[in-house]
């Protein structure tokens, strides 16, 4: 099983290293044909305006949407979250409108307001996640099918999932945090090989829904 990492611009190397650390093969994706044998895709941090243009220029939009429609997991961090959002504040057109959320870019301010904070992410267990927020976005609205995975102390939403699509406003790949990547790998292997009775078995990321209320 291979997990693709969109390698147009940004911290894709850190995501590949994180996948390596959990023994999962990660591959760089710059062209549509490189998506043909991946079981999931990570959209890294970077500058969303640059990544948006490169996705359009290299014809990656439809192939990525196809991958998502087939049920493969997609995981976006920071700029990746913006790229996956259905609405971007300030009337910017969406890039890959797969998550029914609205995001505000640079929601905390400029670089001087970048910060680190520990977060509770119940779906990943009791151990808190160390969140590194760099000119980070924030989720302003979530649709009815979107699960909130993490909030800041003030209640603002910074991690979400909707079926096979996950996104965080922060960078687990900069903090030595592997649990999100493990979750993506588990979803990818489930997608590759659903096994018997898969239809009745809860999807790995939906499993804790009841606990979340």
């Amino acid at each position, binding site marked *: 099983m291979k997990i693709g990492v969109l*390698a*147009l*611009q*940004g*911290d*894709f*190397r*850190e995501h590949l290293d994180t996948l390596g650390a959990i023994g999962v093969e990660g591959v760089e994706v*710059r062209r549509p044909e490189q998506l043909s044998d991946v079981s999931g895709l990570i959209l890294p*941090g*970077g*500058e969303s*305006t*640059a990544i948006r*243009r*490169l996705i359009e*220029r290299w014809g990656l939009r439809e192939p990525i949407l196809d991958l998502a429609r087939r049920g493969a997991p997609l995981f976006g961090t*920071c*700029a990746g979250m913006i790229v996956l959002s259905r609405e971007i504040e300030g009337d910017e057109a969406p890039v890959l409108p797969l998550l029914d959320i609205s995001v505000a*870019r*640079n929601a905390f301010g*400029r*670089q*001087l*307001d*970048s*910060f*680190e*904070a*520990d*977060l509770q992410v119940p779906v990943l267990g009791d151990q808190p996640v160390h969140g*590194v*927020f*760099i*000119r980070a976005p924030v989720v302003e609205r979530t649709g009815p099918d979107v699960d909130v995975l993490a909030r*800041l*102390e003030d209640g603002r939403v910074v991690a979400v999932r909707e079926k096979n699509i996950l996104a965080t406003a922060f*960078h687990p790949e*900069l*903090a030595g945090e592997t649990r999100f990547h493990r979750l993506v790998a588990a979803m990818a292997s489930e997608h590759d090989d659903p096994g018997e009775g898969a239809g009745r078995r809860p999807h790995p990321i939906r499993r804790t829904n009841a606990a979340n209320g």
Partner: protein
Amino acid sequence: MTTETSTWATKKGLARMLKGGVIMDVVTPEQAKIAEEAGAVAVMALERVPADIRAAGGVARMSDPTMIEGIMSAVTIPVMAKARIGHFVEAQVLEALGVDYVDESEVLTPADEANHIDKHQFKVPFVCGARDLGEALRRISEGAAMIRTKGEAGTGNIVEAVRHIRAVHSGIRRLVGMREDELFVAAKELQAPLELVRGVARDGKLPVVNFVAGGIATPADAALAMQLGAEGVFVGSGIFKSEDPARTANAIVQATTHFDDPKVIADVSKGLGAPMRGIALEAIPEAERLAVRGW
């Protein structure tokens, strides 16, 4: 839950988000918009591009805050601005303006011929120039969260940039091959702190992101820098001194992403019009070379 702003991780982290991208020099909000539209990951706001600083002579200083603010409000990508080497008050001013990165730059006239800025004292992150591994590690020990090799700014001539990125990487390879007990002398020779030298020997890379700057004028120049180990590129005069800045900017962005695909570089290089004219290095008197500023 504790929240900490402007940590070392966030300072270094912003540079990591810029990797694989192009940072462009701009002198007006209109140019900043062209750069953003072309796919720049950040812009460097300054009054004159290095080629014009070179032509104008005199003392080159930090840009007018009004002009920097104009560019900050024109684009959503990060905005960097330059302070003179050692001029910590210019850096304080840039921090007060809220720029995203300060470049302590040899392109401006140095304000201190002995000391660089103590960059640990600032909340804003710094990028600094370097010609070799020792210089890079000295800047990191002073608090630089990003390095760019210097090249020779404003020339459109890649030769110095190639020399400097090769020097950094051959320096790293040399350390990696050393025994632990040889690193003491290596640190002495590099004039760099032992701890940083040990880290480079262990990791095989600098502890911060390293871009190439100074002389990139074509898509092939950018790809050359990337193939030599750059994590991204700064393009100064090369874009807005070319015949068609928007197209040149976009072509350099594509070549930086697909730096190892010669077909893409060939494609984006077609019919770009004239690049900036460029200056042979020998034509620049020693006293007018910028890369030798800083130590």
